[in-house]
């Protein structure tokens, strides 16, 4: 079990210091540092292959790191003594490909983790799950299987499934990248509502308009380092690094 940490909400809820990560000889993260305060929404943008997804996957321990430190609520994520399950109860994650459990209905997908992992009362879990499904605007789809839902609907079930664990931090890994343009919006609306409710969110995204609108802070990564960061008001207009300018020039 973890030792009690003396983390207080005025300290960063997620804190990365000089994080290094390699796949074999290929170094993907070359010393990345960033801090996220409770209730903040940060967006990580950058060209593909710049290590954005790897970075976010390191935060809940899906990938291990070779150097530096990642702390969530003061707890070192890659400490061998750390109970990974305890960390993952605090950090929710939504994937590009939704990854719903295909043999379970939407409602069962949302209920499964609280029932089996947190061992909560079934009636409570079901009530909460139905509320979450309502919250992501999928009322009436409770008993549909993932295969019967559109990509956007599946992604919203995936968000509800993650929220059912009552996480303190939500990670979004290019969650709209696999969606049709029409359905992107419905997912973004859901995320914006979450952000407005005060959920701490870390998003990897290609939706610049959305990043500009919801993010408190934007990080631009390229070739494994954070090139530039700042609040959206200044980031998009006053980018100083040539790499950032070039990227934004291509995108906007």
């Amino acid at each position, binding site marked *: 079990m973890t030792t009690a940490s003396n983390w207080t909400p005025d300290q960063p809820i997620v804190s990365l210091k000089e994080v290094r990560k390699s796949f074999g000889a290929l170094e993907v993260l070359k010393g990345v540092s960033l801090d996220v305060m409770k209730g903040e929404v940060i967006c990580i943008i950058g060209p593909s292959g710049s290590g954005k997804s790897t970075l976010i996957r390191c935060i*809940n321990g*899906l990938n291990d790191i070779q150097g530096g430190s990642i702390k969530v609520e003061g707890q070192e994520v890659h400490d061998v003594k750390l109970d990974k*399950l*305890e960390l*993952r*109860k605090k*950090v*929710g*994650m939504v*994937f590009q*490909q939704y*990854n*719903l*459990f*295909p*043999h379970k209905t939407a409602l069962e997908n949302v209920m*499964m*983790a609280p029932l*089996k*992992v947190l061992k909560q009362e079934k009636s409570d879990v079901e009530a909460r799950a139905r509320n979450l499904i309502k919250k992501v605007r999928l009322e009436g789809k409770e008993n549909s299987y993932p295969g019967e839902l559109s990509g956007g609907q599946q992604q919203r079930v*995936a968000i509800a*499934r*993650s929220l059912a*664990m009552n996480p303190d931090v939500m990670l979004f890994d290019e969650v709209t990248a696999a969606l049709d343009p029409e359905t992107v919006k419905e997912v973004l609306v859901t995320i914006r509502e979450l952000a407005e409710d005060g959920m701490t969110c870390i998003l990897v995204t290609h939706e610049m308009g959305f990043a500009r609108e919801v993010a408190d802070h934007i990080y631009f990564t390229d070739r494994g380092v954070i090139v530039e960061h700042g609040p959206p008001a200044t980031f998009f207009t006053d980018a100083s690094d040539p790499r950032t300018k070039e990227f934004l020039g291509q995108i906007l």
Partner: protein
Amino acid sequence: MKRIAGINAPAPKHLQGYMAVLKPFDVAAHSPDGYIFTRWLAGMPWWTPFAMMVLVVLWPTIVYAQSGFTTGDAFGALWRWMPFLLTSGFLFNVVISMLAMAIGTVAGAALGLGQISPLKSLRMFAWFVTQLFRNSPWLVLLFIVLLALPFEITVFGVTVRIPDWMKGVFGLSLPVMANISEVVRGAVQSVPTAQWEAAESLAFTRRQILWQIILPQCYKRMLPPWMNWYAILTMATPLCSLLGIEEIITLSRQAMEAEDNHPELLVPFFGFALILFFLYCYPIARLTMRLERKFAVKL
């Protein structure tokens, strides 16, 4: 099979002659997979048993036309023995196949899960056992079991006899076990790793992920290969006759001896056994291939 224009079906008229397209693979010619036997069996036309019956009747008439023992006599003998061969013989083959399948499935499932264990030593052990029994001749395994197992065992002062047919069941269950082990391993590994990651990120333990999320997605895709192995096993049960177990082939031989060993009896008696095996396994093979197509990688 799905028809894809330009791949295994002609391209639409208005496109023909416009594009240079690589000659497609012969998609009907399957690479050797686990279904060779079942696909061959399922590919036979429905009238195969009738054709076999005609052959069985014609053969002795033509070949032994000049002997005194007539085809009529041979089939009269078969007719007398038929109920016995069916109820004491073939049904026993079915019982052997079911028991061997049950043991092989349970042991094979355990072995297959061992092959995907996070423990390296267990993984290597399960892999070794799987390969050993998967690649050994079935008859050799049967003889080893027959000779290696004692004819009785004493547990806490109680002596239990192990009849030969039990040894046959056990011997046949070994290769089944090894092949089911591969079926389980393959099915688990065919579930995308993203399912593991999604479950991990929800704080499920490895054991929970395997039993509650991965395996439930596997049962359907394990069914066709499992049935495939059942059909192969059933066809292999006559091997037990070499151990003297009184299944249909052993009993057929004894019946022919009782009928004075006329060579005219061979084709009717063994042909009867062949038709019985066909009638039992053919529907299984057809269903297997239908399910295989239905469940084919669809996520």
